[in-house]
């Protein structure tokens, strides 16, 4: 049920959900975490947070994700980038 709700959530709701979740992942970001905070480029968002993020994105897309096919540094550097990625994946879903 939760997965379905996630898939159907609006972009805005997803953004809020992701930002709130990230705060629980104990990422040491300087200042406030916003949709445009560099996550990967800053080096702060490393392996464990990325793992959490992959699990969350899979929930939103509704399918397992192969991260080796994604340019994480380019596509997931910000929350906005992650949301764009989800929109593209959901848009291209059969």
């Amino acid at each position, binding site marked *: 049920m939760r997965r379905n709700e996630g898939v159907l959530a609006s972009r805005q709701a997803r953004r809020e959900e992701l930002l709130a979740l990230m705060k629980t992942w104990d990422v040491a970001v300087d200042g406030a975490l916003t949709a445009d905070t560099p996550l990967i480029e800053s080096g702060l968002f490393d*392996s*464990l947070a990325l793992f959490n993020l992959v699990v969350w994105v899979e929930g939103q897309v509704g399918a397992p994700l192969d991260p080796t096919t994604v340019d994480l540094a380019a596509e997931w550097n910000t929350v906005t980038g992650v949301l764009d990625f989800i929109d593209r994946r959901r848009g291209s879903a059969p």
Partner: protein
Amino acid sequence: MSAYEVLKYRPEHKARIAELQCDLWSSDPALNAAILEWRYERNPYLDDIPIYLATSHGRIVAMRGFYGGRWEAGIPRQENLVYCADDLVIAPEHRNRGVFTLIMKAAFDDLQASGDGIVLTLSGGMTTVLGSLAMGWKSIGQTLPTRLLSNRTRLLQLIRSYGAEVPVARQAVRWLPDRGRPERFTRLDSVGATRPSGGRVWLAREPQAQAMAELIERLGTDGRIRHVRDAKYFAWRFANPMNEYRFLYAGADRLTGYLVLRRCISDRFDTSAVYVSDWEGENVAIKRDLLRAAIDWGGFSELMAWTATAARETVQILLEAGFPEAVRSPRGIPCILVKPYGTTASAGTWTMAGKSVLDPSNWDLRMLYSMQG
């Protein structure tokens, strides 16, 4: 200014690393110290010890090691020194603080200053793979493991999945072991001692490094990228204190084939499976005899092999022996990662001896090359 400083390993760091590695290698610091000495201090390819450490307030809180290997590709063969990144450990309270990125940047700056080439990650778990991908590493492809399960293991799995479906059975299923028992070579040793194949295949506890290397030399190469398997390599490789090995050999006067079995003795890893670390033979019949002996004599609850770049006839032998066809994981792991440094990186095309390192068909990957083997 970063709260962390990156240092290169010095012998006085050994005790702290052995302690830190209780999160990864084993819960025994003495075994961890032995692993470090073997993998890095006695590595036959590097004089240097490229272990990078992150410190916070003077205390080591993370490490990433790069052990050396000699890889070959092409016809005629060209040899290259290749680094393998491994053994990432970050103390829990220092995760998500940018430590991984900091260490890797320092390591690559250092490598860059030493020349050019590629770095591999052969045994990374999901979190290491993700951290690496974020730093521009690329996947060569999945290793495509296949597992032969004993009847007992299959039955346990069946009961467990039944228990998950049927509420009334759930309590009973909780009493079942999560995995099989830790695997031992007891049965293999006992059956192998009787030479049941009439001497066609025989079992040993020690590597015949020279004879194995001569066999590899006689078999030649198809030009794909692979580790140089000479006597020096075999002698070092099978001294890994984290593992126990058994060697099935074929041939009388000279070696015509071998199959290496590995089991892990660390309490931090899955000890319920035995792994086909490496496997060679002059022909299909010899390879089949060796695998048959491993299965029949060992009676293992789980026997695992990689299939990703194995020759078609090798995969066929596995299938005939009852191994299921390897299934591609939708999450892309386990996989092999690669990243170039120096001019190899700036050239844009990632190659070794003119072969693209991103094309899985250019690789002859064996479990032996990874720390899983």
